[in-house]
C-alpha cells in the first residue's frame, strides 16, 4: 500500500478536475437521443450522461426547444437563454420536425443505432406519432425508453392536459407547503405576503427528476448488460420530489399530524436551524448529541445549560423545546459575526472539551460570495469553460469527482441544429445535397 502519501494528497493527485481530460470516460460507448421538449428535467438528465462521455444527440424542432426561452427576466446571452446555456453541455444539437412523417422516419433510423431515448411529451403524443415505446421497441429491442412527465405514463391523471413545470412539481410534492416563514399571530397573508408556503428558487423540481431518471437509465443499462433487453422507464416529476420528504408521510399515517411550516427551524431535527448573527445568519447543525453539546460548550453555556446531563436529541425536537432553545441560542449568536462563529467552530474542533467533535457552523452566503469562495474555485466548481460558440463561461461543474472516469465539461451549449451536418452524415449518411432538400422541406 502507498503509505508515503496522506489520504487527501493521494486522492487529489487522482481526482482533481484539472486532469479530468487525461482520463477515460465511463459512458463513451452509449448513444442517447434526447427529444425532451419544454422540460429542463429532460435536458438535465441527458447532461448527466453527456458529462460521462455518452454521445447525446439533442433533437429539437427546427425552431428550437421552447425551454431555450426560459431564462431569467428574458435575458439572452449571444442569443441563448441562461438556463439552457448551462445544460446544453457536451451535447450534439440537431433539428428534426417530428410532426412530419419524414422527420419520424429519420428518427427511427437514429433509434436503430441508439441505446437510450429521453422524451418529455405528454403521455400518448409519441404513440400517436407512431414513435412510442411499443413501436420503437420493435425496431430496437435493446432501447431504453425514458419518459419524464408531470403525472407519469399510467394512472388516471396521466391523461391530464396539464404540462409539467418546476413550480407545479414543487407544489404537488407537498414540499412547498411545509417550507416558509410562520405567519405572525393575528396577521393575514395580505399583511405578510412573505409568510406563505415558499418554493425553492432553483429548479429543484426539474433537476432532481432528471437525476432520478439518469439513475434509472443507468440501472436499466446494467440490467440490459445482463439480459440484452431494453425497457420503458417512467418518472413523474412530483412523485420524484415528494420522495425526498423523509418524515412527513409516516408522521401523518402514525398520528394524523400534517407537517406545517416552521421557518428556518426543522421539525424533525435538533440542533438544526439558521440563526441570526451580527452581520447575517449562520446555519447551526448538531443532530448528533455530542455536537449539540459541543455547541453549548463553544458558546460558553456548558454549565449553565447542564449539557453534561443531556442523553438524547430526540426530546429537543419537541415544538415547545425548539422554540425555547432557539430563543436562547439566537440571543447568543447575535453577539458574533458569521466569521467569528465559523472560526469558533473550527477552533473548537482542535481544542474544545469534546474535540475533534464540533458543531456545524456554515455562513449563509449569497451566490456571489459562493462564486468567489477560494475553496470552490480550488475544487474546480466554477472553472470557466472555453466554449467555441459562447466564449469563456462559468457554469457549475465537477459535482462529483472520480479517480478513473471523471466527468468533464467540453462545451456548454450549441445553437439549434449546429451539428446537423456531422451527425446526419455520421448516423444517416446524409451529405450536403440531401441535407439541403430536408432543410427546404422544413424537416430539419
Amino acid at each position, binding site marked *: 500500500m502507498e503509505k508515503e502519501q496522506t489520504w487527501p494528497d493521494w*486522492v*487529489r493527485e487522482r481526482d482533481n478536475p484539472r486532469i479530468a481530460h487525461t482520463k*477515460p470516460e*465511463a459512458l463513451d460507448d*452509449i448513444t442517447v437521443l434526447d427529444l425532451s421538449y*419544454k422540460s429542463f428535467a429532460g435536458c438535465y438528465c441527458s447532461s448527466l450522461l453527456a458529462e460521462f462521455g455518452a454521445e447525446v444527440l439533442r433533437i429539437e424542432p427546427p425552431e428550437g426547444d421552447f425551454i431555450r426561452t426560459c431564462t431569467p427576466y428574458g435575458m439572452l446571452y449571444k442569443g441563448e437563454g*441562461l438556463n439552457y446555456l448551462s445544460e446544453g453541455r457536451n451535447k450534439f444539437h440537431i433539428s428534426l420536425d417530428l410532426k412530419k412523417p419524414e422527420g419520424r422516419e429519420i428518427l427511427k433510423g437514429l433509434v436503430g443505432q441508439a441505446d437510450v431515448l429521453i422524451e418529455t411529451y405528454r403521455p400518448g403524443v409519441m404513440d400517436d406519432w407512431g414513435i*412510442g*415505446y*411499443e413501436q420503437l421497441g420493435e425496431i430496437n429491442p435493446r432501447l431504453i425508453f425514458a419518459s419524464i412527465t408531470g*403525472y407519469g405514463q399510467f394512472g388516471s391523471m*396521466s391523461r391530464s392536459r*396539464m*404540462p409539467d413545470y*418546476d*413550480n407545479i412539481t414543487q*407544489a404537488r*410534492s*407537498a414540499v412547498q407547503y*411545509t417550507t*416558509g416563514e410562520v405567519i405572525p399571530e393575528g396577521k393575514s397573508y395580505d399583511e405578510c405576503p412573505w409568510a*406563505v408556503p415558499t418554493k425553492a*428558487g*432553483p429548479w429543484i423540481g426539474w433537476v*432532481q427528476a432528471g437525476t432520478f431518471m439518469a439513475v434509472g437509465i443507468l440501472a*436499466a443499462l446494467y440490467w440490459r448488460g*445482463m439480459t440484452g433487453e431494453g*425497457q420503458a*422507464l417512467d*418518472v413523474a416529476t412530483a*412523485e420524484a420530489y*415528494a*420522495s*425526498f*420528504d423523509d*418524515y*412527513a408521510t*409516516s408522521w401523518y399515517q*402514525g398520528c394524523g*399530524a400534517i*407537517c406545517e411550516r416552521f421557518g*428556518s427551524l426543522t421539525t424533525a431535527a435538533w440542533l*438544526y436551524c*439558521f440563526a441570526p448573527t451580527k452581520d447575517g445568519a*449562520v446555519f447551526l*447543525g448538531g443532530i448528533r448529541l455530542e455536537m449539540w453539546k459541543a455547541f453549548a460548550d463553544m458558546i460558553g453555556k456548558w454549565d449553565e445549560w447542564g449539557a453534561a446531563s443531556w442523553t438524547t436529541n430526540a426530546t429537543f*425536537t419537541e*415544538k415547545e423545546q425548539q422554540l425555547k432553545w432557539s430563543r436562547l441560542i439566537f440571543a447568543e449568536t447575535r453577539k458574533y459575526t458569521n466569521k467569528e462563529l465559523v472560526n469558533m467552530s473550527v477552533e473548537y*474542533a482542535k481544542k474544545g472539551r469534546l474535540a475533534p467533535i464540533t458543531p456545524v*457552523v456554515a455562513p449563509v*452566503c449569497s*451566490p*456571489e460570495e459562493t*462564486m468567489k469562495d477560494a*475553496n470552490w474555485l480550488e475544487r474546480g466548481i466554477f472553472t470557466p469553460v472555453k466554449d467555441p460558440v459562447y466564449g469563456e463561461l462559468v457554469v*457549475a461543474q465537477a459535482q*462529483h469527482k*472520480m*479517480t478513473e472516469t471523471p*466527468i468533464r465539461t467540453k462545451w456548454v451549449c450549441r445553437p439549434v441544429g449546429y451539428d446537423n451536418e456531422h451527425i446526419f452524415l455520421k448516423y444517416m449518411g446524409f451529405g450536403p445535397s440531401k441535407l439541403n432538400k430536408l432543410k427546404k422541406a422544413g424537416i430539419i
Partner: protein
Amino acid sequence: MAEETWKNYKEKKHFKSSPLKGIRVLEVCTLVLGPAGPGYLAKMGAEVIKCEIPPKGDVAREMVPFGYFFRGQAPGFIPININKYWLGLDLHRTEGQEVFRELAVRSDIIEDNLRPGVMDSWNVGYRQIKEIKPDIIYISKTGFGPWGQYAEENRPSNDGGAQAFSGYAWMSRFPGQPPLKNRLFVCDSYGALMGEVSVLAALHYRERTGKGQFISLSQNENIMRAMSWVWPYQQITGKVAMPAGNRDVSICPADTFLCADDTFVAIAAPAPEEFRGLCTAMGRPELADAPRFKDHLTRLQEENATEILKIIADWARTKTSEEVEELAEKHGFAASRLYTAKNVVEDKHFRERDFMTEVDDPLLGQYLEYEFPVMMSKTPPKVKWSVRPVGFDNEYMMVHLLGKSEDEIKHLYDCGALGKWADMDGRRPPPGWDGKAGLILARDREGKE
C-alpha cells in the same frame, strides 16, 4: 403512454426481476446524505448491508418530528433505509474491521459519509480495500470532499450547511426577508441521488473494463450544480442573482397565488397555447395578443412579468384552488394546489401508480411507503421491508454470508466487534415485538425443526 407496457404494472410488480439483482453494497453511513444513496439501490434490488456502530447506530434514528416515533422508529430514518440488511459492527475494533474486509471482498460497492480519513484510520479506506478487492467501487459523500481548505480544517457538514454555503437558501426566499432554510434535507437527498449517478456510471465502466475506482461527492458542490442560471448570470452581468419568492423569474407566468378559500395554488402557463388558455380561463383572451405579453421573452421582462402576475393574482383571489385546477385542465395550462402530507398519502393517482406503495412489514406492520420514483416496465423497483433495530441481521450475515460458526460469532460478540441495539426508542424493536418477527435466521431454524 404505451398502454400494453404499463398494464397491471402495480399488480405484476413483484413477479418481475430487479435491475440491480446480484449487486452487493456495503454501507457505513449515517443521517441522510449517506444512507439515502444505498437506499435507492436497495429499492432497485441491490443487496445493501448497512453497518452501524452498536448499540446506538445511525444518528437518524433520532430524527423525530416534534419528538414523535412511528411505531417505535424515527420517521426521518424510515424511507431512506428500506430493504436493507442490518449489521451492528464496531469498526473501531480490529475484529470488526476484519469482518468488514471479509464482506468487502464479496461486495461491488462501498459507500460511506464519514469525515475524510476516518475509514482510512479504521483500515477500511479505499486504499486498503482495493488491495484485497481491486475492482471495488467506493464512494465517500461529505461536505467538502477530501481536499481543499475546508477539508483541511476538517469541517463537519450537513444539509442545512450546504443550503447556506451554496447560496441555495439565499435564493429561496422573498426579497427583503432573511434567508430561508428549505424544510427538506434537499442537499442530503439530492447529493445522495447524484452520488448514485456516478456509482452506476462507474459500474458500467467496471463491466466494460474490470476496473473499480474511488468517487467523492460534496453535498455543497452538488447543490451548486442544481442552481443553473445563477452562475453564468453573475459572470455575465457582474451582479448578484436575486431571490424572487414564489415567482419563477425564468418562466412567465409561474408563481403561487392565494385563492378565495385562503388556500394556495401554483400556476404555470408560459408556452403560447398555455398562456392563451390561461387568459381565456380568466375571461381576458385579449391579453394573449397584447404586445407586452405575446412573446415569452418579452413577457419575462420585469415590468411585464409584474403586471401579468398581478392580473393573475387578482383573478386567483376570486377562485378556489380547486376551481383553478379544473380550469387549467380544461384550458391546457398547469395548476396545482399545494399538496400536504395528507394529500400525498391519500392521492388516488399516486396509489394507482403504486408510488405510494403498501408495505406489510413483519415489525412495523402495514403502512404506505414511497416507491423509488422511476417506474421500470421490466424491472420495477420494489419496496419489500422496512427498517430494523441495530444489528438485527447479525446472525444471518455471519452465517449465510461469511459461514462463521457459533463459536466464532460468540467471540465477535464477546470482543465487542458485533453488537445489537441500545434499549432506546428508535434503536430497539417496536413495542410488542414477539422476539421473532422479521428475524431471518430464526425463521430458518423454525423451518428445520
